[in-house]
């Protein structure tokens, strides 16, 4: 590839974020190739055609190869951009929220989880119209629960 090709991977996130992403992806691909696929794909070979692990290995191997290509290209570029901390913060916040939503949904039920999530999300997004927040948090989950039962005959958890 020419020098131009080095610019191929210019994208949101900047050089540092891309290098971190490349390293993470390469590590994940190695994890899949060395531990996950060999230990959790049975049997090792097939009497009919290629082994069941052939295609996962092919996909993970390609990801590893492309991650190395991404790393090599971005490594040679001048430092640019940033935003790595933002990605990590947002991921941490979302992980905590997702766990809370799952726990609330499974332990307390939809009619408890949904109003809290709607109200919380509206406030988080900057809405401060309290009557609207209260109305949305109360009416919307009830409407959805009712519609799910009437239309799909499904009882939400």
């Amino acid at each position, binding site marked *: 590839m020419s020098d131009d090709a080095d610019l*191929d991977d210019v994208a949101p996130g900047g050089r540092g974020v891309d290098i971190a992403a490349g390293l993470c992806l390469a590590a994940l691909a190695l994890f899949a190739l060395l531990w996950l696929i060999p230990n959790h794909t049975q049997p090792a070979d097939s009497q009919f055609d290629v082994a*069941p692990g052939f295609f996962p290995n092919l*996909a993970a191997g390609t990801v590893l190869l492309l991650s190395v290509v991404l790393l090599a290209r971005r490594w040679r570029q001048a430092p640019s951009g940033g935003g790595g901390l933002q990605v990590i913060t947002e991921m941490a916040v979302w992980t905590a929220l997702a766990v809370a939503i799952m726990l609330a949904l499974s332990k307390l039920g939809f009619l408890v989880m949904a109003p809290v999530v709607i109200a919380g999300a509206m406030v988080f997004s*900057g*809405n401060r119209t309290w009557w609207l927040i209260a109305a949305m948090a109360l009416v919307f989950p009830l409407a959805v629960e009712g519609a799910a039962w009437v239309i799909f005959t499904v009882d939400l958890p």
Partner: protein
Amino acid sequence: MIESLLAGFEAAFTLVNLAFIAAGVTLGILIGAIPGLGSVTALAILIPITFYMSPLPAIAFLVGVNKGGTSGGAIPAILLNSPGTPEAAASAFDGYPMTQRGEAKRAMKYALYSSVTGDMISDVLLIILVVPFAAVALQFGPLEYTAILIFAFSLLAGISSSSPTKGLIAIFGGVFLSTIGLDPVDSTQRMTFDQVNLYDGLSISAVAIGCLALASVIEQMFDLKRQQSAAAAAGQSQSKGRTALPIGEFFSHWKTIGRSALIGSGVGMLPGLGVTLAAFLSYGAAKRASAEPESFGKGNPQGIIATEAANSAVVGANLVPTIALGVPGNIAAALLIGAFIIHGIVPGPFMMTMHGELIYALFASMLMANGVHLVIGKLGIPIWSLVAKTPKSVILPPVLILCIVGVYLPGQSLFDVGVMLAFAGVGLAMRRTGFPVVCLVIGFLLGGMLETSLRQSLLLHKSDLSAMLGSPIALAFLALTAFVLVRAFRRAPKEAS
């Protein structure tokens, strides 16, 4: 054929039939607009309603549902950048930037007109080509399918990101995820950790809704948090853009409309390739053919036209293998086959001779359904446009809840909800780091098909891939793959700079 079609119109043009078509299109649009509940779910839910109906209104109703459900997915994609189905993802590329410019109504009109036009072209092709094209479709074996899918992946990597490397990583990541579950040949477990929930693999709707719709919702909420209340109170459209779309202006894009409808029809006639592939192949073709490819993804209406005309064209064309061979083109067509059988019609080579009158009445109903779709869609645009004027801080939280409910409803599985929440995080990280989320989803969606066709090819040709040289179709697609990849890597630096 003309006489048969006229007789079909005579049978189909009744008030009852029109009412059922209208009801089907309306319900299809409403259900299709909810993230996670596309045309397939709409059909699955509504088929039992047709049990007590006579065959023609029943099938016409379901065809209306399918048409409405396919175009309904474009609504959240354009208004909220939250495509509810993978096939609508490309509509968001240009539809959402138009909404941000205050042109939501125009974008939705483009989507509706393209959808109806693409559908109409595909229906006409269905009527003309149903028998001869079925014979061509039989020429496509596993080798040809493998080549088409590899071509589709290379095209996707080239169009969906400024970095083809990132696009390819995302695609193969998706392909890897698609291998979780039971092996398609040996039925042995692969990376399931003895979890029954994983035997069928990760749920497609959970991965797609998590990565595409929910990740977009979360991203927008984080952005709102940064901008805080000023933008939240101001509503989505900061500026008032054009809302009118004269029909002449729409048809000035006739080349894109025609090309996309043909791509959608071609893909639809080949069993199994599906709506999403058609949408992205068409988007890529429109971008490559455009004099301003850099304007795609920034609110170029041709992006919407290409996507919607192609994915709607699949709806009619899918019935070619369904009617001619009894082989469903996709899940929606498989459900329609079920409905045919319930009503005493056995799809297959004898369908045209045994039920010719009914089939031509069905063709007439499909053409009528396009007119009904246009009217109902136009009536709905002002209502949907209100969403664009409502502050995001009011719209996004209910969409988050709808995503959860939309994924829970089909399988009633909390595991799927958990998978969706996890993939929302993956989608968010990918969006923030410039990896194209849509590549991951389509890699996941088509990965199983690629594996099956590749392994069938290896079995058929005793692992000798030089058999590709004996298939002109496969060779042509592989040559196109090489061309598209080289072009994508050469163009990427220019676009990025």
